[in-house]
């Protein structure tokens, strides 16, 4: 309550004071209209001329310069990247070429190696066959020889055994005949 009364008094005071002094809108007072419009036109004209002649072209130049420089730099960067790409491509090409060459070399040496191995193999096989044939021949001769010698040994032994037992000398030709007969039947099995 104590506060309220001065509050109301204050509001009334401001309300009465609000529009009391020199009532009216200064905007509608025509005393300085000409002066204001004159100065406005003058100042605006000078401002317009100075802006359009000096400041706006300057700002525009700045902006254009920046755009140009940025574009130039971008172009340069693009050029460099293209160059780098080209170099990269060359490098890759070289690598693939080298790889191809390596593969070629490997294949060639492989082929050569294979060839020489095969040649040697064939030679070796031929020699082997020769040796085998030789050995077979020898064995065959040996076989024949051995059968002959066995026959003679068998004749001798049988004649001797018969002599020892009977004490007689048998006809060597008959012994020979019987031995060959037996040999035909039996020795062929073992030789």
């Amino acid at each position, binding site marked *: 309550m104590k506060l309220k009364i001065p509050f109301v008094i204050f509001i009334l005071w401001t309300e009465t004071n609000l529009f009391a002094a020199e*009532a009216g809108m200064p905007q509608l007072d025509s005393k300085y209209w000409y002066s204001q419009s004159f100065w406005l036109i003058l100042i605006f004209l000078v401002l317009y001329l100075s802006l359009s002649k000096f400041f706006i072209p300057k700002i525009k130049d700045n902006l254009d310069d920046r755009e140009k420089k940025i574009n130039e730099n971008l172009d340069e960067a693009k050029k460099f990247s293209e160059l780098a790409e080209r170099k990269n491509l060359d490098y890759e090409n070289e690598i693939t070429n080298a790889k191809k060459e390596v593969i070629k070399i490997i294949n060639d040496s492989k082929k050569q190696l294979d060839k020489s191995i095969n040649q040697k193999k064939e030679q070796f096989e031929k020699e082997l066959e020769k040796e085998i044939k030789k050995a077979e021949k020898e064995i065959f001769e040996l076989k024949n020889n051995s059968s002959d010698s066995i026959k003679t040994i068998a004749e001798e032994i049988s004649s001797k055994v018969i002599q020892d037992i009977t004490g007689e000398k048998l006809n060597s030709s008959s012994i020979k005949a019987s031995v060959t007969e037996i040999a035909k039947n039996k020795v062929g099995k073992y030789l």
Partner: protein
Amino acid sequence: MHLIFTIKKGGKMELEAAKMIGAGLAAIALAGAGVGIGIIFGNYLSGAMRNPSAAQKQFPNLLLGFALAEATGLFGLVVALIILFAF
């Protein structure tokens, strides 16, 4: 208080009182401006909620609509001030 005295004085309304009443009536125009601004911002918001990607592009239009709607209310205010101070 001034108003009450003037009306009571001669049974006839004085110019001063009529001016006050007229100015008050003219200020009602601001209600319409308030409604208009509310509609503009509300519709902008609902549109922006539906399609947020298009909201940024329409922001200048929002400001323009706001200024145009507010101006009509301020015309009323100007009328009120002119009634109060010019005559």
